[in-house]
């Protein structure tokens, strides 16, 4: 098992070769695999390796500034030589309107399957406004057997400075 620091270092290495193309106005949040999983990291990559032979799912909240627009999601992965596996990343929006049962909608999904060493799979361009007044957002990583999960990335456009700055003068 490696430390979070090592995992974050691994993302830095990935970013050197698999960094997103700069797009005007788009910001990024990258989350290390160590935020999803506690153990079974494989040095030196700092990626979580599914060695259990069964499907694994891990979910974390996605908290972006309200009013942001999600433009894409991406999954960084790694395969050992000759290994074949699949994995996917889902962006889920969950509506809460009690007493109704919470409803989850799949907003975006990327899926990878292959045998390359380090890899990156990115969604097509998205336009998902972030509205947390009635819903929460989750990122779910689903790992097939084998393979390693290194990090995920969310591309978004933050709200304008005025959307952040001036709400208190409008009631």
């Amino acid at each position: 098992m490696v430390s979070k620091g090592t995992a974050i270092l691994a993302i830095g290495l990935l970013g050197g070769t698999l960094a997103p193309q700069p797009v005007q106005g788009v910001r990024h949040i990258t989350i290390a695999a160590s935020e999803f999983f506690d153990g079974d990291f494989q040095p030196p990559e700092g990626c979580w390796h599914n060695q259990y032979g069964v499907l694994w799912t891990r979910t974390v909240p996605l908290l972006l500034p309200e009013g942001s627009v999600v433009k894409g999601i991406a999954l960084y992965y790694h395969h050992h030589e000759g290994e074949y596996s699949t994995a996917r990343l889902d962006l889920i929006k969950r509506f809460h309107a009690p007493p109704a049962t919470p409803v989850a909608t799949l907003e975006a999904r990327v899926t990878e399957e292959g045998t390359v060493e380090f890899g990156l799979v990115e969604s097509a361009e998205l336009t998902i406004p972030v509205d947390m007044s009635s819903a929460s957002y989750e990122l779910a990583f689903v790992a097939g057997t084998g393979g390693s999960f290194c990090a995920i990335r969310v591309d978004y456009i933050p709200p304008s400075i005025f959307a952040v700055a001036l709400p208190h003068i409008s009631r």
Partner: protein
Amino acid sequence: MKTGKRVTIVCCSLVALMLLVASSPLGGYARSAALVGIQPDSPALRHYNLPAWGFRPLTGGGIIADDIAGCVYLTPPYPYRLAAPLLLPEGSVVKYMHLIVYDAAGLDDVHLYLDAIPEPTAVSQVAHVQSLMVAGYGSVTSSELSVTVDMATNAYALEVVLAGDYHTQLCGVRVDYIPPSIFAIALPHIAR
């Protein structure tokens, strides 16, 4: 008047206006007192909507999640306590907390606390809301709060106490807050 002078006057006026607003009560901690009476549906509020997945157990056994509804509960032993960090821009003012739960029988209460933690051995519960003990999915909103986020001296956490076993589940928490002013974000060195 020459164009250059006009530009200089306009620029100086803008800087003076920025300083005036940044140093006004709306730019500092006095904002919390100036922002009393805001209703939960006010467009002035921003929202921090945390799904149950974001909580981790403090006590009890493992955490069990309902993949369909996204609600969670803890396995024995009792007590069942979960927590999640609350990370808001410094200078924000927390105005409301909403607790969303599932209670199969309507017999067990659920408590949500906003904890301010100045040091590891001290936890101050600065806000609290309790479920209504109604069967099914439900939500409850706190009374109006005025908690100014000061991360220089505190860490903040959302703490949930589930009274019952799997019959009572946490589905999510929403915190309504007013973000700091534009000047508190952009020019903290001149904000009071």
